[in-house]
């Protein structure tokens, strides 16, 4: 797949320009122009809200087809715990994972394996004391981007441990390298993704989280393989012992799953992008100073609510909780405190670069010009009807005023202003109709 900054895109054929997505975008990244929705590259955080909300299913996430894997000699599927919630608990986890393997993979690895390590290492990172409080989870890439775009003052609070997905990929590559049977370039690792944000992370070369040792070669949407899996589960050979993770690590797919690893009462976990925004606003204002760790997940319920999943998020949560309660395994085979510590101390699970703000551009680099533009925006805003109807193609009247000042829209894009102009014009037309021109014969008067 070509490298993309975003995985959310528009199917132009299906988009009617209906404006539903406009007002539901948490970063105001969408405009409708020429009857089609346009997504701003700099503002989109890949949260997937527009994919969920579009009544015409015109918003999609660009993922890789299953066939992409044929380019590699040794094919590995990374399976997030979210997938377990997609199927009824009457099937065993071994059956589900074996079905994934039967899609044509040589090996299936649970991302929960990496989650267990990241979860346990979280307490070391928490006590490292280099973070302002609260420490903010980096698990959800959409929330990380949200903070970069809308809460730039909080970027230093973001935990710089890699995601379970990236760490798992790295450990798989490390093991295969040590085994020596395949060249690194012959190994294809594919993430079975529940959401657009993770897809972007896999495909985005600029994601600071990555280096070549944790390369993931593609992201395959859960919904794209769901029917095949449903056919295979229970009808394909089951590999015993393929499932090797703990209840805690599988709970990462649920809101609060990561927080539970800290065993600290001052943690706050929130799911749903709007709820996350509300709480981040409080954190930003210095309220909630008693909170030491904050886990924010963009989708309702956590990853089980991802826009590329199939099962209803509440049902998926119920299935997953049911299984987690019944899992017997308390620890992963071969995983000791020393092992987790050695990985933590090796530096391989740390994001090297600082996570930097991606604040939107100011109105102008020169503050005087910016103030001048702000005044123009406010004058325009006064003229607009404050209805935020979206008919102009901007998410609200304020946004239209900003677009006009930026030269990207016109006043008459507002249907109410257009109506006013038409009314003024019709009054003028009517007045002109009454005028008798000197050289004209008198109009015949109706009796």
């Amino acid at each position, binding site marked *: 797949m070509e490298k993309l900054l975003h995985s959310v895109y528009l199917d132009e054929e299906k988009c009617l320009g209906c404006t539903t997505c406009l007002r539901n975008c948490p970063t105001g990244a969408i405009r409708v122009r020429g009857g089609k929705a346009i997504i701003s590259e700099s503002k989109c955080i890949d949260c997937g809200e527009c994919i969920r909300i579009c009544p015409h299913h015109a918003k999609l996430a660009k993922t890789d087809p299953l066939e992409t894997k044929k380019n590699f000699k040794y094919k590995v599927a990374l399976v997030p715990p979210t997938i377990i919630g997609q199927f009824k608990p009457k099937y065993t986890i071994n059956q589900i994972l074996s079905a994934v393997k039967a899609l044509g993979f040589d090996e299936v690895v649970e991302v929960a394996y990496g989650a267990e390590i990241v979860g346990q290492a979280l307490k070391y990172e928490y006590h490292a004391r280099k973070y302002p409080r609260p420490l903010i989870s980096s698990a959800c890439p959409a929330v990380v981007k949200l903070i970069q775009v809308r809460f*730039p*003052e909080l970027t230093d609070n973001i935990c710089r441990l890699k995601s379970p997905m990236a760490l798992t990929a790295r450990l798989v590559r490390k093991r295969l390298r040590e085994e020596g049977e395949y060249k690194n370039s012959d190994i294809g690792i594919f993430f079975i993704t529940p959401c657009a944000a993770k897809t972007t992370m896999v495909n985005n070369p600029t994601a600071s989280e990555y280096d070549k040792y944790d390369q993931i070669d593609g992201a395959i949407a859960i919904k794209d393989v769901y029917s095949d899996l449903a056919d295979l589960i229970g009808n394909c050979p089951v590999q015993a012992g393929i499932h090797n993770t703990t209840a805690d690590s599988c709970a990462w797919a649920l809101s609060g799953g990561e927080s539970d690893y800290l065993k600290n009462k001052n943690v706050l976990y929130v799911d749903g992008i709007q709820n996350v925004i509300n709480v981040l*606003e*409080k954190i*930003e*204002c*210095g*309220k909630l100073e008693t909170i030491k760790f904050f886990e924010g997940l963009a989708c309702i319920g956590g990853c089980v609510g991802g826009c590329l999943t199939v099962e209803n998020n509440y049902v998926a949560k119920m299935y997953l909780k049911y299984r987690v309660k019944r899992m017997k395994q308390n620890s992963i085979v071969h995983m000791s405190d020393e092992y987790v510590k050695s990985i933590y101390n090796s530096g391989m699970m740390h994001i090297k670069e600082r996570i930097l*703000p991606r*604040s*939107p551009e*100011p*109105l*102008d*680099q020169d*503050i*005087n010009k*910016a*103030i*001048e533009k*702000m*005044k123009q925006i406010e004058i325009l805003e006064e003229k607009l009807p404050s209805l935020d109807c979206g008919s102009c193609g901007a998410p609200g009247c304020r946004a239209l005023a*900003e677009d006009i000042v930026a030269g990207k829209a016109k006043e008459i894009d507002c249907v109410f202003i257009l109506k006013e102009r038409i009314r003024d014009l019709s009054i003028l037309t009517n007045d002109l109709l009454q005028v008798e021109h000197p050289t004209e014969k008198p109009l015949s008067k109706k009796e």
Partner: protein
Amino acid sequence: MRYKLILDVKRGDFDAAGEASRKIKDILQQLGVSSKVIRKVSIAGYEGEMNLAIHSLGGKIILEVGEEELSLTIKDIGPGIDNLDLAMTAGWSTADDKVRQMGFGAGMGLFNMNKHADNFLITSKIGAGTKIVMKFSLE
């Protein structure tokens, strides 16, 4: 070139709590003020806004932005503060139980404003009201 914005805050209006601070933050971001300064203004502004809603009879927040500094004025119409030195002490509060139950009234408001502003000036008169002027350098 100076920018000025006046926002009203009503007594007891917890539904709108935080709206003024949010608006101020958005405007400062668009004017290109650094995120470090915005954070300080956000904290001080939110405290001021909550003070108006909880303790005052209502008032205004006035934001003024110039080339080198910005000021935030919190002005109310009463009741006024009796002992300013005491009111500035961390943890001192006149908030009643109802307000405390809502998670406010920890007595850190004026203390936090003073802490985050580069320059803090408060005047108050019983019966007339309180006026706080905070200045923040843009460097």
